[in-house]
């Protein structure tokens, strides 16, 4: 699947804004991403969020990713 990146997350993927990854769940997707871009690990340690078809998931690693889903990796949001 194609994963879209932006901001500092794109920099961790050598500047790429679109990367090819595999994974049936968010957890598997992130593992695949780190295997390809080890620099991404520090961002995962700090926390990221994954938008799957517009729904933003911060913590649910077991969330399934449907085929052909729109997947976007985002920085982790803080609130007040």
């Amino acid at each position, binding site marked *: 699947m194609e994963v*879209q990146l*932006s*901001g*500092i997350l*794109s*920099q961790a993927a050598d*500047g790429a804004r679109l990367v090819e990854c595999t994974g049936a769940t968010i957890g598997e997707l992130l593992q695949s991403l780190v295997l390809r871009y080890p620099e991404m690990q520090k961002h995962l340690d*700090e926390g990221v*969020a994954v*938008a799957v*078809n*517009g*729904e*933003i*998931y*911060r*913590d*649910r690693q*077991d*969330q399934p990713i449907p085929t052909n889903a*729109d997947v*976007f990796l*985002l*920085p982790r*949001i*803080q*609130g*007040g």
Partner: protein
Amino acid sequence: MPYETDFTNQGFTKVGTRVNRPDGVDKVTGRAKYGADANAAGQLVGRVLRSPHAHALITKIDTSKAEKLPGVKAVLTSKDFPDLTGGNRGLMDILENCMARGRALYDGHAVAAVAAIDADTADKALKLIKVTYKLLPHVTDVDEAMKPSAPIIHDWVRTAGVTPAPTAASNVAQRSEFGHGDVEAGFEQADVIIEKSFKTEQTHQGYIEPHACLATLGPDGSGELWVTTQGHFTFRNVCASLLGLDVAKLKVTSSEIGGGFGGKTHVWTEPVALQLSRKANRPVKLVMSRDEVFRATGPTSSTSVDVKIGAKRNGKITAATAELRYQSGAFPGMWAMFGAMTSFACYDLKNVKSVGFDVLVNRPKVAAYRAPSAPMAAFAVESVVDMLAAELGMDAVDFRIKNAAKKGTKASYGPVYGPIGIGPTLDAVKNHPHMKRKLGKNQGRGVACGFWFNFGGQTCTDLNIGVDGSVNLTVGTVDVGGSRASLALIAAEELGIDYDQVRVTIGDTNSLGHNDTTEGSRGTFSSGMATIFAARNAVEVLRQRAAATWDIPVEQVVWEAGEARAKGKQNNNLPPLSLKEIAAKSPRTGGPIAGHNEVVADGAGVSFASHMCDVEVDPETGATKILRYTVVQDAGKAIHPDYVEGQFQGGAVQGIGWALNEEYIYGDDGRLQNAGFLDYRIPVCSDLPFIDTQILEIPNPNHPYGVRGVGETSIVPPLAAIGNAVSNAVGVRMTHVPMSPPRILKAIEDGQA
């Protein structure tokens, strides 16, 4: 997922009613216990010595005289806080903010602390501590801090998000870029382009209750912390990490909270209080003064923002860009990144680009403030949107409706939206009676939109049914805005019992599994979800007990309207068993009846609001009076409409203060000039009209009841709505918040010139 979180469109009998708040009597009678209200036998008074300088090397701290003062039981400096962070830069920043490590980074930075038998002795001890400073150049303005000539705050900071990675130190901690399409091509298609720069000043959350705690930590590493906080589990984890404690040995209890708004999501003095207690081997109570709250706890960023938007004559936006510069205080943050992400989130844009720069200055460490970073971005963007509508000769609401994001829109920060509510809020604005009220001389009307993400997170809840049928619901999310009433309604709805039968308690860290901090508008969303599932687990037990009582299979028992009913013709002779009846027999049918749930509540759903504001500006004094103010916001499902409206009103009022009055004022010496409510003026009731509200209920598909968070979005539009209203009233575009009387007079004078 063990539980089904999808929206089910069920009917309600309890949810949506306006019941009395359970904490009301305690709060109006003074019985409620806040952060400073706890005491322990033998407790000491903690006090903190703070830097009077914006930036200085600490060449020497002599604590010997203070230590010899009778009644002083402990004195701390950074030497008492060894680095246990394991190389975690974020933790080290927190530790260094709690106690300066060789360098004072802002006016108010803690440099030493004492614990003594009473306040007088502690104050005397502070005066006996001799700190030798070597002054360093300082910078407090965000634009000045980005200049090559600016003093560097941290020599280890390299700008992240830049390729190739820089090798030189910079005050720009991070560059963040979001967007899609081709903005240059988009601007070429535009018939009209508006470009403008804006500034917003630093504000504090302004919670009425100062930070306060009572800390007890023994030499064995076991301790307790009573504290005013939005997240006692997070405080436990952070304090344990900084002080080398086992998480399970530190019990943290959250007090009633007198406001937080993001400022109580971070530790400030709590690790200091615990360390004082460990050194003195006595409980230590540490209560901040208002001066300390202003100087040393997290305000929001001051900002400098450039916005450029182009549109066709038909009113369709063709391209939009923003550059956002946010200061994060003396430690790196991600506040400009959030500003960049939220800036154009309300609109459906083919070509959009926003770039955020997080900048270090000699000011206190910035903390979250209600939809952090979004109000400043919205001020700039929504001002230019209004200017563009005027230039095109379009109604400002119609222009927004024409460009509003909708389901399927690719958000400016990346993902594609699901069902969202910006369009309906704008439709409601267009049809609202507020918009039909006539305006008089020196009066103006403004409209603005706002966006915030919302999120859920880790949540753990227990529901226990007493033998009399009363229910105790224990949750781990601190009640900052009325969640106890909402959660009691949810439990009552699920169990089919009266609201008054449910008592909700905020459990301490030893009572429940980890709960994330109450932030991101998550309290009612996530603990509500966990309460639904915990109650349904309890219902399973109730059905089992009824089945056992009747000696029938549990599959033949249903739970309806607060009682177990036996289904099937063969059970016609079995009268229903109420919750109270089952609970009364519970000691002999298997023991206590309880339900538990732990959940990661994701899918909170994004939130939108549109605000209307009418103002009158006195052209002689520059003073602004808010005549009317109306909030329209999507709440998903309003569990307790009074509290939803209260959140809408509270956010609007904080935004009004930010827009018109509130401002950190620094002198040339880098010292804060107005660290008190006399000189930093928040709005009071007599400054305000009734804040009208309209709740829209567009269900969140990811919550069984359709709930969305409502706590934060309402602070996003006010700066812009008031900015547009004042600009329309005086005929000059206002570009600097707060729009205080002197700034308005100057803008009028500049406009006339």
